[in-house]
């Protein structure tokens, strides 16, 4: 995804990013981290899959440098107007004839926060799934997920194969070290064309479309009260009552 922290501008409804760089989504980084932890505990192999234009290969290298074993880069030109549903269809077509125990995904992407793709993929592949995972364990070959719900955490047991979308509250993704970075250069990245996945192009046409961008109605910064703590505390409390009317 594009770097949400890079400077941006809106010109006539279009979004213009100053830096043309792609970064690894924080929530996906947590999914990669958790996969590596599971591998360290239980063995197995960690493979990463990314749909993106050529420049997305940097983010794939990052996941490999963290410790993933191999990668598949599903090549998109970057000009397609795909939405979550299109991406989910591409991923599902890719996974259809693959063997895996767990598909881990980010619970949302930092730029759009839609959070739809994970459960779409699960539905297309008829997989048991859960979202917003904040913890994972393997017990008796099943995945036990701690999911952050609306008011509490749910402990959910899923048979494999299954899909799970990860929160960044799950872990702190490791920062690749030099050794990891060097090793990543030798790891294989399989390049796959979308057209080779056997999906009808019209299937991928997005039902949703971003038509324009706009500034948020800005909040005016209010007044800052500095000085003796006791005094300013009482002053602001009074203002909340008499001026803001919120007490």
């Amino acid at each position: 995804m594009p770097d949400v922290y890079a400077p941006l501008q809106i010109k006539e409804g279009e979004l213009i990013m100053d830096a043309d760089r792609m970064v690894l989504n924080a929530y996906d980084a947590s999914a990669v981290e958790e996969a590596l932890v599971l591998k360290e505990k239980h063995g197995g192999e960690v493979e990463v899959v990314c749909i993106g234009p050529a420049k997305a290969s940097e983010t794939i290298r990052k996941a490999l440098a963290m410790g993933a074993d191999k990668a598949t880069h599903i090549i998109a030109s970057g000009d397609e107007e795909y939405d979550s549903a299109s991406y989910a269809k591409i991923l599902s077509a890719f996974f259809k004839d693959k063997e895996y125990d767990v598909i881990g995904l980010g619970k949302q992407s930092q730029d759009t926060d839609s959070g739809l793709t994970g459960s779409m993929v699960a539905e297309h592949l008829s997989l048991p799934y859960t979202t917003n995972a904040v913890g994972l364990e393997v017990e008796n070959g099943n995945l036990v997920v701690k999911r952050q719900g609306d008011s509490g955490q749910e402990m959910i047991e899923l048979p494999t194969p299954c899909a799970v979308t990860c929160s960044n509250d799950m872990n702190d993704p490791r920062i690749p070290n030099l050794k990891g970075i060097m090793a990543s250069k030798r790891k294989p990245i399989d390049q796959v064309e979308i057209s080779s996945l056997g999906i009808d192009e019209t299937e991928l046409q997005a039902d949703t479309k971003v038509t324009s961008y706009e500034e948020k109605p800005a909040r005016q910064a209010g007044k800052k009260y500095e000085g003796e703590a006791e005094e300013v505390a009482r002053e602001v409390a009074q203002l909340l009552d008499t001026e803001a009317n919120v007490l």
Partner: protein
Amino acid sequence: MSTILTYIAISDGKLKRSSLEVLSHCKSLADAAGASCEAVVIDANASSFIEGIQKYGASKVHVVEDPIFKNHMNTPLLKALSKVMSSINPSVFAFASTEGTKDVLGALAANQNAAVIADVASFKLIDGGVTAKRPVMAAKIMNNTEAKSDKVLVSVRSGSYDLNESPESAEVVNIDFSMDDSEMKSTLREIISASGDTIDLNEAEAIVAAGRGVKDEDGKALISELASVLKAGIGASRALTESGVYDPSLQIGQTGKVVSPQLYIAVGISGAIQHVAGMANSKVIVAINKDPDAPIFEVADYGIVGDLYKVLPPFIEEIKKIKS
């Protein structure tokens, strides 16, 4: 006549206010478009909520009642929602953007081959679909997203619309539901509930939110006291939910909850973009921070520059005086 359907979420045995906000909005959309405004409630005690739903103008309330819906689980909920959609065939199906909704929305769209726009700040009908405004790029800006389809799912952030009562003697439609154990794809083992605080942050009129500046039990006690004087919910920044000082359910921000109370008091919170993403729509924001350059002051209506341990005691005392 087309149908605009609203999903009414039940949480901890109560109607979620955020879904009634969505219903209020759908009622006005339906009236303007000459569409039928209907609601669906899916719960172990679904029928007990019908009256509460009628107040907000649904002309039909669809009820799916089954013990399996006592706790949130995505397999039965998805099955029920799919059945509801196939039988009612709404042109728009609107949800409050709760964690429960987020767990099934994408899957439902895939299952029903419907277009979907998640987590919007507002939406309206256009020819052939829906257009919505969504906060994007860590909520720095908004975009306009259009969905063109005869079936559109949309989920709405809490606090986006006001409650608007328009009582209607709704027709009640019971929808049969049964689920075999063998259909369950996963097992819910247990629920670890948030300890103590029961005020739903999405519905709280006031929130006192603690950040890393709140360092110890004394600090937590001050937060609790301020919250209790204000009858406020307690929220927290990621710094304090991550370190286990506060329950993870209390996290406010991009990863956590999006809230919009009348009064939000940020105590010892720096105002990182991901935190602000979850609270910038609060009506009045107060920030207490010892760093005069903390970014939280850029969004605060009232900024108190000072040590929270020195500011909070007289602040609490003064509010007590005002309240008595």
